[in-house]
């Protein structure tokens, strides 16, 4: 199961409880044809400090802002080189101090198409090139206009990612870059102030870009990797002094972390995954740290009787 990119998503969600786009997968492996992988994930992240523009501060009237996430994800191999995926998270927020009420609800339904466009042996290694398209939209009528307690940012997002993966023996490295187009959102109010007054309920959401670098061990369906990722909003404005965040802020974050995946030796179709991460730089977002864990199971949907051995390639 490829799930790693959603970790960035959840992390960013956790930071300002903004939802990012393109909750698609970001690793260099594919599901085999007719294999369907599905499973639940749970995650938790929190922050005490956040960046008000570029100023790092705490807020005694929020205390620790935490986000719990429960997600169901699936991935189906249409062919060995073309996978489709989905994710549907339930998100719950909470502030440890002050009076603001945490919110909860189903966030955004995401779909991805992942295509392994090119694969070539180079020396002793193998280079693969991928293209991934993603789309997400709110799956419930939540509000983005109550940050940092909102469960998401409400925009519909279309993402396009290019990715290169190089594996040599049991070692690998993957690099990817993503562009995320975001739709306007609608507030519950008829006017709002950014850096000027707007007499409308509609907010123009700046697009965003992200990159992700990961490297480590990968063999027989298991991996252990370090990652560094960055989310940069292409536009938007800074939170003004002692103001609250707004959905179209310039939200940026750079994180580092570790991802692990381990297929059970007694039942290779069953894998456990987990990660931990922390935020090392940001703007208009919380400095979140957190962890996620999931269990995934692979079902072979092909008509031919097959064993679960193809799981090892996932």
């Amino acid at each position, binding site marked *: 199961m490829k799930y790693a990119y959603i970790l960035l998503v959840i992390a960013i969600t956790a930071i300002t409880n903004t939802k990012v786009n393109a909750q698609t997968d970001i690793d260099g492996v594919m599901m085999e044809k007719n294999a369907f992988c599905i499973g639940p994930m749970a995650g938790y992240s929190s922050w005490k400090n956040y960046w008000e523009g570029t100023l790092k501060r705490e807020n*005694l*009237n929020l205390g620790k802002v935490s986000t719990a996430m429960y997600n169901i994800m699936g991935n189906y191999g249409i062919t060995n080189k073309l996978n489709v995926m989905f994710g549907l998270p339930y998100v719950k927020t909470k502030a440890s*101090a*002050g*009076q*603001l*009420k*945490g919110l909860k609800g189903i966030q955004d339904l995401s779909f991805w*198409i992942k*295509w392994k*466009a090119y694969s070539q042996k180079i020396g002793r290694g193998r280079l693969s090139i991928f*293209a991934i*398209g993603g789309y997400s939209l709110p799956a419930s*009528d*939540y*509000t983005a*206009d*109550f940050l940092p307690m909102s469960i998401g940012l409400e925009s519909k997002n*279309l993402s*396009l990612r290019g990715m290169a993966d190089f594996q040599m023996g049991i070692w690998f490295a993957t690099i990817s870059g993503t*562009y995320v*187009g975001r*739709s*306007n959102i609608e*507030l*519950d*109010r*008829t*006017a*709002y*102030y950014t850096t*000027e*007054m*707007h*007499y*409308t309920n*509609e*907010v*123009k959401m700046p697009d965003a870009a992200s990159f992700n670098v990961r490297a480590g061990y990968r063999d027989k369906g298991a991996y252990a990797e370090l990652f560094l990722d960055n989310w940069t909003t292409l536009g938007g404005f800074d939170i*003004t*002094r*002692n*103001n*609250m965040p707004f959905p179209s802020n310039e939200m940026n974050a750079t994180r580092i972390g570790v991802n692990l995946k381990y297929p059970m030796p007694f039942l290779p179709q069953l894998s456990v995954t987990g990660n931990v991460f922390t935020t090392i730089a940001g703007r208009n977002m919380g400095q979140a740290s957190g962890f996620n864990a999931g269990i995934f199971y692979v079902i072979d949907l092909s008509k031919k009787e097959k064993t679960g051995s193809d799981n090892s390639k996932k």
Partner: protein
Amino acid sequence: MKKIKILYILIIVLLFQSCSKDINDQSEEFPALQPASLDINAGTWRPVLLTGPTEFPVAAPIATTTPDYIAQVNEIKSFQANVTTKEKNSVKYWSAGAVLRWNEIMRELVALHNLPPYQNPDGTYPFPSANNPLAYPQFPFANPPYAARAYAYVAAAQYDALVAAWHYKTLYNRAAPYTVDPTVTALIPKSNLPSYPSEDAVVIGVTTELLKLLFPGDQEFIQLKAEEHRKARIIAGANVRSDLEAGEALGKAVAQKFVTRARGDRAGAAIGNQTLWTQMENDAITRGETPWISQETPKRPPMLPLFGRVRTWLFDSLTMVTTIRPVPPPSTSSQQFKDEVAEIYNYSKNPTREQIRIAHFWADGLSTYTPPGHWNAIATEDFVKQNFSEVRWARNMGLLNMSLMDAAIACWDAKYFYFNPRPSQIDPRIKTTTGLPNFPAYTSGHSTFSGAAATILGHIVPARATAYADMAKEASESRIYGAIHYRSDCVKGLEAGNKVGNYAIARARTDGAE
């Protein structure tokens, strides 16, 4: 095949991007002002502060046959010969009306300044200083009482200045440049209203002068708007420069009367001091009640505790205490109080999406134009459809905003007279879906503002009276849904607001405009 797929993805991305991200800003849609009536006798309407329309003299204009006047017309023609798209857009923008546009500009300034100061390292809070407006915390903190007062002074002064302007317009009866010289193009709808002194310039003069007092740190922004407005009038062919100069001078003169009133209206002392804050707390304890305590960390001093003593517009301070001040709230030890806390806890526990929507629609909290600004926005949208003259716009905005400021004063009087705690202070399980204001609960400011606004607006636009009353009720209840007010706060606040609005109606009936 796969290339085609990639192509599809690219096309979708492009479609998504081209999928219009343009936003229809309501403010850009307002049509040019085309008054149903010129209100040509408005010079006889009763001003708010002026002793009469001639208190500040306006000299007779030069004749339209003089070389000086002809030169001024030529200035228009030169502009019109080289008019740019940007200038045309500016003419269109300002054509919606001077009162409307400067009201919007004020709402923008309020939103910009509606942020509470961050605490000092020792846990105290700094206060903005009018003498040093650009230093943090910037002056002003445009909270709801401050905003209500700012809107009211500007609106009332605009009204008085335009009454005087209308007097001189009819006295001197100088036609607009496009009428005097038919080769001047009118870029806005033509009007038979005499153009000297310019009503737009009167509004510029009176507003910019008052904004020096109210938003002293935003002079560059304000002066840029003023210059754009002046130029728009000349490019439009609606005014020659001497129309503008006479109008602006009149506006500035009238403003001084309002500046003098503002300096003596006791708002400057409304912050109070630690002795006073402690005394209010102790007084509540002495009455056997649980006093309000700031729920912020560190504890923030209550917002403008002496704002209830600010000078009112529509009634005197005795009337406020005897007629408008609500009965005491349910005692904090009474069963009714416990029941009301329980009601709020239930709203807080599981708010529906619709309740959150209503709470947010009316929240008008940090970084917004405040509830008085919201009612100005509501009035603006409806007034545009009424095709009021500029002077009637000012009169109606004056009535609305004097009501809103008096509502603020009456509400703040009640809040600090009773010093009643917020629901979340009594029951810490109560969490709010909107920001918790840092001042006592009884009565609800939103309810008082909305009661006052809906009442006077219902008089001005009777066809909308029921709609305004419904909106006021929803605004009032939004504070219950947000879990920051008890029902008593809202019910009694709305009642007090309605009373304030009725005083505005009484004035409206006798100001000569009806």
